[in-house]
């Protein structure tokens, strides 16, 4: 992870004033004083988030060439385009904290930076595209809605913009899955299979359980996160479980049930699998990093040409 620029020793007064601003609900803006640890955590989170958008283009992008109708093909192209756009805003937001795009990309390509573990699961049928829209974007929206209230201005504003687009993707994903669940037997089976494969990864993508999430208290104190992972996960399940059941699908968790407060309580999550995937042993980790690296390496001569052309234009303009 990129290290923040070394700062003069932070005084307790500075820190207190900073925390008071956050307490007051003020947004922290790029030029403002902030603790080095705040800067560092934000760069980590925002760049991970950006990487997730960029890597997330791969499992979905692969289906543009396999979409079953021209209409769905257009929608999917538009969606993946949006994701690339989100990657752009987010890299830009991280740049306001002093990280450079090159540093961040380098961290991604060498495997030092993380991206959402969900994208290391394979997309094996077209129904996966619908299910990703419904569950993965659904989970992302819960998280991003929370982050839209984050204390860092550029991140908060990026989240607002991203959320509104994601909401649209979420709706389209749900619409697809609901239609397939009522379609031909093969479509129905495909929808159920997609749910079987994506349900648990979607729960896991909201992050480790609170007790294994040591950063959370500090992040909440600084107003970067407003809710814990488990709280966001509960919101996600409460919304999606009844809708999936309503669609006629079976959630692959025999212990799932509603408690007296109306919360849907899930069975135990296989966190071993989560950590395996995070550590690089998911089904697609290797392929995803290879694809990104290949794109980067194959594009080197193009970026060189761009730079050479720009330099030439400048020197001509200077003449």
């Amino acid at each position, binding site marked *: 992870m990129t290290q923040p620029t070394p700062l003069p020793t932070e005084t307790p007064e500075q820190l207190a004033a900073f925390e008071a601003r956050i307490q007051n609900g003020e947004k922290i803006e790029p030029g403002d004083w902030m603790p080095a640890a705040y800067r560092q955590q934000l760069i980590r989170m925002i760049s991970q988030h950006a990487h997730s958008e*960029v890597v997330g*283009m*791969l499992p979905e*992008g*692969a289906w*543009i*060439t*396999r*979409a*079953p*109708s*021209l*209409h*769905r*093909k*257009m929608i999917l*192209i*538009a969606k*993946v*385009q949006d994701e*690339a*756009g989100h*990657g*752009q805003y987010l*890299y830009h937001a991280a740049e306001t904290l002093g990280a450079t795009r090159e540093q961040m990309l380098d961290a991604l390509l060498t495997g030092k930076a993380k991206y959402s573990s969900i994208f290391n699961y394979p997309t094996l*049928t*077209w129904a996966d595209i619908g299910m990703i829209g419904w569950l993965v974007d659904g989970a992302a929206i819960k998280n991003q809605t929370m982050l839209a209230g984050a204390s860092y201005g550029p991140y908060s504003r990026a989240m607002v913009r991203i959320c509104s687009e994601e909401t649209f993707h979420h709706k389209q994903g749900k619409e*697809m899955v609901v*239609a*397939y669940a*009522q*379609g*031909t037997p*093969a*479509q129905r089976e495909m929808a159920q299979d997609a749910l079987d494969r994506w349900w648990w990864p979607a729960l896991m993508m909201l992050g480790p359980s609170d007790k294994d999430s040591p950063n959370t208290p500090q992040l909440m104190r600084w107003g970067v996160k407003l809710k814990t992972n488990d709280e966001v996960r509960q919101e996600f399940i409460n919304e999606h479980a009844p809708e999936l059941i309503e669609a006629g699908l079976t959630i692959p968790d025999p212990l799932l049930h509603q408690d007296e407060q109306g919360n849907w309580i899930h069975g135990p999550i296989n966190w071993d699998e989560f950590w395996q995937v995070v550590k690089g042993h998911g089904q697609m980790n290797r392929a995803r990093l290879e*694809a990104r690296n*290949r*794109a980067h390496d*194959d*594009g*080197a*001569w*193009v*970026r*060189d*040409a*761009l730079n*050479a*052309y720009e330099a*030439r234009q400048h020197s001509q303009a200077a003449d």
Partner: protein
Amino acid sequence: KRALITRLQALADDEIILAHRDSEWTGHAPILEEDIALANIAQDEIGHALMYLTLREQLDGQQADQLTFFRGPREYTNVQLVELPKGDWAFTMLRQYLYDAFEALYLDALRASTYAPLAEVANKAVREEKFHLQHTALWVERLGLGTEESRRRLQDALNTQWAYTSQLFQPTDGEAELIAAGITPDPAAVHARWDGLVRAHLDRSGLQVPAGDGHPFTRAQHSEALLYLLTEMQSTAREHADAQVW
């Protein structure tokens, strides 16, 4: 009517196949900005194909998705230029430029169509197409005047692609009637404008247009590359041939 259907399908097939090739870059472009730009172009191309196929459906009732996902390589009527494998970024940008120049000029002429629905489609599409052309023309210039390597790659692409371009301007079956009736533009006239535009830009970008005639292919002839493309493109639709809703 038969002649108009043939022309509409040819226009649609070119867009669908080229959009497929462009889509192969999604997530793999040299800079993130170009993932967006190229996806945008592909999306517009699919949009244009849908407009042409909607016009066709009004003429003979054949449905766009049926035509797109259930014809084999022997029935597609795209030019070979658009089915050539993806290649490198220079190959992709040059092909897109050559095609965009064709499409922008063709649509510009098509706005004068005496067949109102077609003139309307042309009016809509021509604006997008001019934007594509601007984008790809700039890329040709950047790569042509960039580094030694980028110029060489672009020139290699031109050496391969140039002979295929003449196919874009072949009249389709029965088109003479359509031209006479002012329904579609004369491809020969579009060719002349295209040739002037493109040669000047390639020249300005430091490239040499190869000599020689074009390949004498017809739109019924295809390479194995189209087969592989269609296998992928049609796999989902064909696996669920009985699906009513997507």
